[in-house]
């Protein structure tokens, strides 16, 4: 069907996207890689010299580095745990027969559309504030001492906020997958005497497995980059208690003016993201063949 002419045209149509993305991928990354081997501080921009592996060593020997890696893992892991378990439960619940299902869906999905600074500030000030927040009001109502969330549990507080933002995403995707489960299969299992637990383990979970994988991988990509939520709530503190890798790099880069150090951190972030990306690409690629 395709003639020489249309094939040339097709290539021409593809060229701008490919060209832009190619530049986009190579130029900044090459610059980061180059800077990571240089002594380069914005406060002293004329004095740039080759640093070898010094920046990596420096980043590696910074105690904040391991804490930030650990915090990144806790943040990603914590949010994934809450959103996947909560998402399956919520999807199962919403999938049941009820009145006003459409509105329930809309209410549940809404947090996903709230921009990160709004989500974080609303939680920080109106929900978790130790003096005036709703949690404090509930504590006082129950006769308990209100918790100062962001100084006592800084990272956990951020996990809660981010989980609130991503729970809708997991729920929506798992619900979509659930609704594609064959109703007749369910009925057949029911008639054969399978109870709810058995149906869940042998029918629902295997059916959802693929979607859960997709949810985990996509969320991980985004969760590795959590930034604004930390900026407007704890600013990484107290100390480094809620500093994740992106936030540490930001601190090094734009607060410490250390281009070399921040770039070394950036390369480490790229390596981390690539490990996840590798699995995500395989999951998505498999689907493309169908």
């Amino acid at each position, binding site marked *: 069907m*395709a003639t020489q002419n249309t*094939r040339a045209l*097709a*290539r021409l149509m*593809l060229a*701008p996207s490919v060209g*832009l*993305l190619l530049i*986009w*991928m190579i*130029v900044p*990354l090459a*610059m*980061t890689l180059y800077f990571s081997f240089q002594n380069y501080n914005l406060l002293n921009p004329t004095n740039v010299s080759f640093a070898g592996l010094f920046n990596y060593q420096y980043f590696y020997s910074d105690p904040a580095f391991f804490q930030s890696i650990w915090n990144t893992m806790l943040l990603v892991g914590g949010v994934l745990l809450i959103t996947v378990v909560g998402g399956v439960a*919520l999807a199962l*619940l919403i999938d*049941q027969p*009820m*009145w006003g299902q459409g509105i*329930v869906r809309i209410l*549940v*999905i*809404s*947090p*996903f*559309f*709230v*921009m*990160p*600074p*709004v989500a974080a*500030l*609303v939680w920080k*000030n*109106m929900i978790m504030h130790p003096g*005036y927040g709703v949690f404090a009001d509930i504590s006082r109502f129950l006769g308990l001492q209100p918790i100062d969330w962001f100084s006592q549990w800084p990272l956990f507080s951020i996990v809660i906020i981010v989980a609130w933002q991503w729970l809708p*995403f997991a729920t*929506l*995707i798992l619900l*979509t997958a659930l609704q*594609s489960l064959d109703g007749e299969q369910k009925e057949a299992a029911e008639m054969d005497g399978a109870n709810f637990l058995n149906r869940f383990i042998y029918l629902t979970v295997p059916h959802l497995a693929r*979607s859960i994988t997709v949810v985990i991988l*996509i969320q991980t990509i985004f969760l590795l980059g959590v*930034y*604004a939520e930390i*900026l*407007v709530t704890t600013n990484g503190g107290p100390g480094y208690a809620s500093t994740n890798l*992106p936030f540490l*790099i930001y601190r090094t880069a*734009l607060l410490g003016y250390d*281009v070399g150090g921040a*770039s070394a951190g*950036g390369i480490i*972030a*790229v390596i981390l993201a690539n490990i996840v990306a590798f699995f*995500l*690409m395989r999951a*998505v*690629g498999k689907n*493309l063949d169908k």
Partner: protein
Amino acid sequence: MARAVSTRRTVFFTVAAWIVALIIFFPILYTIITSFKSETEAIQGFNIIPSGTFQSYIDVQTQKDYFKPFMNSVFLSVGSTFLALLISVPAAWSMAFSPTKRTKDILMWMLSTKMMPAVAVLMPIYLIFRDFGLLDSRIGLMFMLMMINLPIVIWMLYTYFREIPGEILEAARMDGASMWGEIWYVLTPMAVPGIASTMLLNIILAWNEAFWTLRLTTTDAAPLTAFIASFSSPQGLFWAKLSAASTLAIAPILIMGWFSQKQLVRGLTFGAVK
């Protein structure tokens, strides 16, 4: 035929689901409620019935010039989405209708560019923007947002275009349609819904982007994400005003989001879940 569902069961699930849904929605609801309170009311403990004042909305405009960041958000999200569509419609089109052996590899490669952590290229981008005088410029940021969403736009369009049957093209050709006629009269009407949903999702993503919009702007080009983030400073702790600004910032996108639930699943999973 689905089996009959007992009313008792329905009532139980209705009550359970509504309670959970309202808890999840509560922070948004409470923000909207607080935006109609006065500043003193806002910190007087839990109260879901506001006095109904619009003062905070007026203050946000008169004291903080809300309209400027709002228009920046509109410009950036709509502008970057249109720019992305301009580049990606032809690309997705050509990959969907004239696929080659390499099409799959190209698509996977495009997706992989989305995996790059923003923070890893913060320094080079910042320096490039500084040297070209693009810091705090709307054009620079618009280009930035276009680039980060371009892979998603191409992927979404591709999954939509691929569902348009190729036979319809051949039929049109048999009937003597020229190539442009083919594109204009046959394909365009079938592609419009896919393009529209892609557009919607990407306006949402661009509107809520909160890394580059915070780092590459100071005042002139600052959109709502940066505007709201400025409320985090201690002297900015005015909850009714924060609520009013937040309500205005999320309302348009919330409504758009409600309409694009289905496309959201498809777009954000790159077609892996439909």
